[in-house]
């Protein structure tokens, strides 16, 4: 099995793993951002170039560095490869350039956009982008169109990641939309308007990294951070039926698939679950969905802490501290040990 070092973290991965997947196995801040790559979609990735990394050592056999940044979602690891992501200033500068390019035609209408608050591009530009733009020409604009009864396309916001095209290709059996034209005038569209009706077409909304494809039943109803995400499931003949409900009071405003920490859906859901099941009685509620503390949606959001999970996390952190100079961190380690003991006591008392 090839061994790869990403930002000084060494990991052994199976043959044929991409650098991005290896980084995701390590986890944390060193994972390169990805706008077009989607684990569940075959052949995705390689368009947006936000996941570029610097390879300072090609492999054990050929230690020469790769001269230019490579896309980590499409490059497989080699034994002894050394990759720099956040540790390379040069690379971060290159990524800033990529973000600037993505934002050239993207309108800064986050106050209006329904995706704001859970938008990949918003996170990306916040982390890497510039506060202002250097672009002074007219931006590419389109009229909003309804590509289906339930989906609205605002092409102005699209970054041409091709994810929705791949969803239609791989999840549904007939694709009726795609990328028309080429280069600067390329756009996602359908030849016949209002044509998308497939039962799984709603997944296009979930995979869209920006607010280009939006749910017409949720459009402008509420900002995402005023809704409460709740895990729920139901018996569904078409799909798994496991979803996240976005509720305001007793009202279900929106139904989406459950997304993981990289904003990728865990299981595809059908249009019946997504658009037509907005009655609370149709669902079996599991509990509040976990929302990362960094997200704006986590404000006023309360959930149960899983003590066993927290214990694993604390153990991992203490182990990670062990490699560093203990003396400097001794007070912190002591604190963590104390919190570990408190945790054990809490768990014992629970039993």
């Amino acid at each position, binding site marked *: 099995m090839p061994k790869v070092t990403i930002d000084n973290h060494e990991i052994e991965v199976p043959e044929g793993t991409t650098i991005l997947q290896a980084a995701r196995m390590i986890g944390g801040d060193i994972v390169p951002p990805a706008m077009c790559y989607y684990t569940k979609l075959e052949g995705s990735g390689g368009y947006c170039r936000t996941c570029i990394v610097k390879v300072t050592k090609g492999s054990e056999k050929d230690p020469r560095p790769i001269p230019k940044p490579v896309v980590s979602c499409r490059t497989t690891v080699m034994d002894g490869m050394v990759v720099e992501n956040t540790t390379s200033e040069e690379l971060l500068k290159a990524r800033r350039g990529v973000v600037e390019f993505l934002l050239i035609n993207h*309108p800064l209408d*986050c*106050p*209006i956009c329904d995706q704001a608050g859970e938008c990949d591009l918003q996170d990306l530009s916040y982390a890497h982008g510039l506060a*202002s*733009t250097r672009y*002074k020409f007219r931006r590419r*604009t389109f009229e909003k169109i309804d590509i289906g009864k339930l989906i609205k396309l605002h092409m102005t916001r699209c970054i041409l990641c091709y994810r929705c095209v791949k969803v239609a290709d791989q999840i549904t059996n007939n694709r009726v939309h795609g990328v028309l034209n080429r280069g600067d005038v390329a756009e996602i569209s359908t030849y016949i308007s209002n044509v998308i009706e497939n039962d799984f077409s709603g997944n296009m909304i979930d995979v869209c990294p920006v607010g280009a494809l939006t749910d017409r039943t949720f459009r402008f109803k509420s900002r995402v951070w*005023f809704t409460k995400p709740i895990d729920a499931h139901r018996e569904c003949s078409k799909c798994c039926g496991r979803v996240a409900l976005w509720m305001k009071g007793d009202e279900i405003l929106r139904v989406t698939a459950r997304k993981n920490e990289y904003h990728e859906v865990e299981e595809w859901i059908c249009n019946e679950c997504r658009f037509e099941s907005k009655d609370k009685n149709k669902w079996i509620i599991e509990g509040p969905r976990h929302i990362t503390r960094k997200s704006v949606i986590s404000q006023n959001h309360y959930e149960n802490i899983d003590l066993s999970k927290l214990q694993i996390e604390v153990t991992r952190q203490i182990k990670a501290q062990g490699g560093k100079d203990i003396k400097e961190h001794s007070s912190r380690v002591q604190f963590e040990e104390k919190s570990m003991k408190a945790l054990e006591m809490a768990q014992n008392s629970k039993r």
Partner: protein
Amino acid sequence: MLTNRSKVVVDKKMTFSERIYLPAIIGGLFITIKHFFKKKATIDYPKVTREMSGVYRGQHVLKVDENGAERCVACGLCAVACPAEAITMTGAERKPGEEKLYREEKYAAVYEINMLRCIYCGLCEDACPKEAIFLTDRLVEVSSNRDDMIFGKDKLKEKYFNEVDITKRLTKEVIEFKKDKFHLHNQMD
């Protein structure tokens, strides 16, 4: 002793002038009459109002733009910034033909501020990306009814051609920010 003004009470015999009380009465009247000619401490509110400080934060205003279209897009940033959770809103989509009413494709169909909850901190004004909400130097009308204190768009939105002056709230920095060419793309076509 708590103060230096306290006097020790002695049971001494009053003099003649003290006994007839007249000098004390005249002295008292003189003090009273003196106040007739002094400047009054009170004003005849509401006919006359005091001058407000430029940074006084009173009743909110929802601004309209130079064409009379509402600036607010119901983005919810004021509500999320509000520490008292006084602001609620419901967004709606602008229909074709309503371009003169609403500046952008989304607008606030309902915009309510609970004036009893509001602490007049001005964070909503800071959070607003569209320069739509400002706190003004107007006092909030009082009411004996709690429901009347939830101000909707009818009370908050300013009338076109009768705009509320907010130039005192627009600081030098805000005006500089507006002039920035880099933000041209934020403007309407």
